[in-house]
């Protein structure tokens, strides 16, 4: 009848069957998603010199993914996500230091500790505006930073945590200087957690989060407990961030106060926004773009690379992130059509 109806180009069988197809379509894997992961794996042979950088990218991507879970899917802004990254890093680092260097044990411990912290602090975020949330999260991260600084007997204080030794992955693969094991390990963890996140956002629970983000008033009015959902996703996101921190601690075998730094929280936000909020791949693409840009620019001009990053950000925003996205889609549209044919 209207052109909107035409857009839903599903053959008319019965409304219910239609509806099922439509909902299933949203969660289907697209071809470019496979391409992304295959490319990530192929990078090991294609860029053997850059595995350390790739490892950092994978970790940052996971960190950004964890932020996307709350920012993109539940609308909670945070400038203190480094708190979870940090406790995860220290948890894994301390385990490594005191002789429990099994990587997966470290990951589990980091996830658990971060989740507990996330759960405990999530209650502070249930009220208030975006700005309030930004500042509360920031405040928590900075207090943790001060705490870690003061309790130097445990954390090593400003000098960082020394003597972290991590065992081989699965008891087989040692972390080597070239970063090969590190990258594979981080990529693997990223992939598994990504699958989990992807599942969650396409689940009824994930759908309800989007509802909460878009209109909490209405969400309540269809019987959704906004508070419980927010606490749940915040806790989960914290666990993800904790794992990212653990990966960082394990692959560098070192933890320092910077893990809690404001700059780290700000960077991850930047990375996510750069890559696009709310579609899971934003963190991955953002991390890729940001790190490559940073690496490239800081190689050319070690002192002033920030200027160029700043310029890129400014231009990006002025030109409109969405518009650039649309342009890219248009660019790739022939490719898409070719595939359908």
């Amino acid at each position, binding site marked *: 009848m209207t052109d909107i109806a035409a857009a839903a180009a599903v053959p008319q069988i019965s409304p219910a069957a239609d509806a099922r197809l439509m909902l299933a379509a949203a969660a289907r894997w697209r071809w470019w998603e496979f391409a992304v992961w295959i490319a990530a794996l192929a990078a090991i042979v294609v860029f053997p010199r850059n595995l350390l950088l790739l490892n950092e990218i994978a970790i940052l991507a996971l960190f950004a993914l964890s932020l996307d879970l709350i920012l993109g899917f539940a609308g909670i802004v945070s400038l203190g996500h480094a708190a979870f990254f940090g406790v995860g890093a220290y948890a894994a680092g301390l385990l490594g230091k005191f002789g429990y260097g099994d990587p997966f044990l470290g990951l589990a411990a980091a996830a658990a500790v971060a989740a507990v912290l996330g759960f405990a602090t999530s209650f502070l975020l249930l009220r208030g505006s975006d700005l309030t949330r930004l500042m509360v999260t920031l405040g928590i991260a900075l207090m943790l930073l001060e705490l870690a600084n003061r309790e130097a007997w445990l954390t090593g204080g400003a000098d960082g945590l020394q003597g972290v030794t991590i065992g081989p992955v699965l008891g087989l693969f040692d972390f080597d200087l070239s970063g090969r094991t590190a990258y594979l390990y981080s990529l693997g963890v990223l992939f598994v957690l990504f699958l989990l996140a992807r599942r969650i956002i396409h689940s*009824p629970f994930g759908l309800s989060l989007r509802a909460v983000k878009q209109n909490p008033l209405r969400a309540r009015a269809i019987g959704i407990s906004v508070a419980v959902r927010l606490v749940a996703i915040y806790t989960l996101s914290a666990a993800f961030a904790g794992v990212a921190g653990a990966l960082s601690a394990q692959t560098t075998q070192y933890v320092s106060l910077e893990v809690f730094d404001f700059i780290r929280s700000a960077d991850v936000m930047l990375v996510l926004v750069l890559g696009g909020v709310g579609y899971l791949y934003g963190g991955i693409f953002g991390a890729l773009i940001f790190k490559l840009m940073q690496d490239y620019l800081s190689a050319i001009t070690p002192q002033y690379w920030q200027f160029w990053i700043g310029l890129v950000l400014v231009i990006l925003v002025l030109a409109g992130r969405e518009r650039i996205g649309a342009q890219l889609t248009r660019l790739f549209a022939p490719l898409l059509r070719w595939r359908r044919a």
Partner: protein
Amino acid sequence: MTVALETRNLVKRFGGLVATDDVSIAFQKGVRYALIGPNGAGKTTLINLLTGVLRPTGGAVILEGADITGMAPHRRVQNGLARTFQINQLFPEMTPLQTVGLAVSERQGHGREWWRLAGGKREVIDEAAAILERFGLTDVMGAETKVLPYGKQRLLEIAVAIACRPRVLLLDEPAAGVPEEERHEILDIVGGLPDDVTILLIEHDMDLVFSFAQRIAVLVNGGLFMEGAAKDIAADPRVREVYLGEGGHG
């Protein structure tokens, strides 16, 4: 007859203003009510109190015999009390199918399931599709809500409320902004709900009010002015004076 929803000495103050002034009213099960009154009389406030969007300053709200005064809004919905808003409250970036589907799946208790893909449960989909069809939203169910014409959004607003399968439904000016010829359609659908559903309608369009309501409550300055059968209210000179005016109906 049994009482579906009841307020006892309900009071709400905003600073010095008494927006709800000692309102005690009982809504009988299965009866269609209208709530009318001058602008600022406190109609929307009353609905907000009933649904828990606002906390009352005093008094109690009783749903099917149980005191729900302190209950969280979402729990009231789970207990069979749903509403629409005076200004649309929808999910702009979700489709009608997702919106209604979500409401159905929440009601059936699948809301916290994170391991299953949305749309996997047959009974959810079938019910959602049926509701969308009843409201004539089937052909736009895959489009984002924000691009729908206003009239369709208004319908969706009501469809979502109905998807909660309420036993008491509160409608706050559902026909506002809807063209003349479609207003009656909307209320016909609402009127077609099962007989045991209690409905409370706020509306300034008297044609609609009188064609829909069996009983009418009049609110003035926050207080319950009178309550009675529709035709008695229409004929009451005092109601004419405070609300209907010269061109009034009756």
